[in-house]
C-alpha cells in the first residue's frame, strides 16, 4: 500500500488507479512550484519580526542574558544580598512590635448581692426531678374492663334549644335596660 509508486508505498499502483482515485490531481497540486523570491520574503519577514520579549531594556554589561548572571559567584552574591535584605527587614519589624499581653480572666460580679438587693428566692427550695417512675405495688389485671361490670352511663341533659312538637321554645327575654335617671 502506498500513496504513490514513486515513494514506494503502493508499488502495484498504476497510473490508471491513480487517475481513478483522483490522486493525479493531488499530485499535480503537490508539485506546483513555489513562487519566485519566497525565501527572500521569508528572510525579510524574520528580520522585521519582534525578537524575544524583554520587560526592561538592560544595559549590555548588566543585561541578564549578557552573561554576568550566569556566573556562579555573581548569582551567589545576589542571592545572599536578597536574603540579607529580607532577614534584616523581618528582624526590624519583629523588634519594633511589642508582644501582646496575656489575656486576663475577668471575674464577673455575682448577680445577687449578699446584703440585699435584687430578687430573692423567697425560701423556695429546688426539688430535683424524679428520675424513677412510679412503682406498682400490685400487678394490674389482664382485663380491667371485665373487673368493672358497671359501665359508665352518661345521661345527656335535655336539649332545650331544639323545638319540640307542640311546644314552643320560650323566647329569649331581652336584657334589662338600666334605668337612667336624668340628672338635674
Amino acid at each position: 500500500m502506498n500513496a504513490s509508486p514513486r515513494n514506494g508505498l503502493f508499488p502495484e499502483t498504476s497510473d490508471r488507479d491513480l487517475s481513478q482515485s483522483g490522486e493525479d490531481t493531488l499530485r499535480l497540486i503537490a508539485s506546483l512550484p513555489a513562487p519566485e523570491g519566497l525565501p527572500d520574503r521569508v528572510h525579510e519577514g524574520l528580520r522585521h519580526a519582534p525578537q524575544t520579549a524583554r520587560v526592561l531594556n538592560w544595559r549590555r554589561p548588566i543585561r541578564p542574558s549578557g552573561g554576568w548572571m550566569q556566573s556562579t559567584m555573581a548569582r551567589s552574591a545576589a542571592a545572599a544580598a536578597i536574603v540579607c535584605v529580607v532577614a534584616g527587614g523581618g528582624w526590624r519589624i519583629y523588634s519594633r512590635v511589642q508582644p501582646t499581653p496575656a489575656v486576663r480572666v475577668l471575674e464577673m460580679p455575682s448577680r445577687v448581692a449578699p446584703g440585699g438587693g435584687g430578687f430573692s428566692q423567697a425560701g423556695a427550695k429546688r426539688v430535683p426531678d424524679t428520675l424513677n417512675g412510679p412503682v406498682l405495688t400490685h400487678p394490674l389485671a389482664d382485663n380491667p374492663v371485665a373487673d368493672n361490670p358497671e359501665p359508665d352511663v352518661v345521661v345527656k341533659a335535655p336539649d332545650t334549644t331544639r323545638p319540640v312538637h307542640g311546644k314552643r321554645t320560650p323566647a329569649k327575654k331581652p336584657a334589662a335596660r338600666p334605668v337612667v335617671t336624668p340628672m338635674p
Partner: protein
Amino acid sequence: MSASQTLNPFWMEIADRTVQDETRRHAKDEALAALVEQYASTLYRVAFSVMRNPSDAEDAVQEAFLRVLRHRDGLGEVRDHRVWLIRIVWNIVLDRKRRAKTRPETDDVEELARVLPADGLTAEQRAAAAQHHAHVLACVEQLPAKERQVLMLSAFEELSSVEIASVLGITESSVRSRLFRARNLMADLLHYPRSLR
C-alpha cells in the same frame, strides 16, 4: 593585590560570555536562514495543497518560520528538520482552514483552475481539465478528515509513510490503512457520487 586587579577577571568573564552569546545567536540565525533556503519551497507546497491559495500558503510558511524563530534555542534537539517543519506548517494550515470554513469552496476551485499548469492544451481541454480537478477536489473534501489528510500528504513524493505518520502523530500502519480506505472511498465517489457524511 588591588581592587581593580581583583575585579578584572570578573569583567573579563562578562565580556567572554557576551561574545559567546552573540556568537551562539549568530550561529542560530545562520541555521534558521539555511532552513528557510532549504525548506521554504516544500513548506509552501504543503501549505498550498490545503489552502489552495498562493497568498494564504505564503502566510502560513511565514508563520511557520516565525514559530521556529521563537523556538530557535531548541533547534539543536530536532532530529529531522524537514519533517518537523512540515508538521509545523501542517498544523498551521489546518488551523487556518478550520477558521476559514465559512469561505465558499468555489473560490478555491476557481483559484486552483487559474494556477494549475495547462501547457499544450487547447481552451476546451483546459476547461475540461479544470472541471475534472474541481470534481476531484470536491470529492476529496467529502472524505473523512483522517483519510483526507493522509491522502493529501501522500501526494508528496518526498514523504514516506513513516514521515507522514510522524507529521500526523500516528503509526505507520494507521497511515497505510487510512490511505487504503481513502483510495477506495475516492474511487467510489468519483464513479458513484454519493455523500459520505
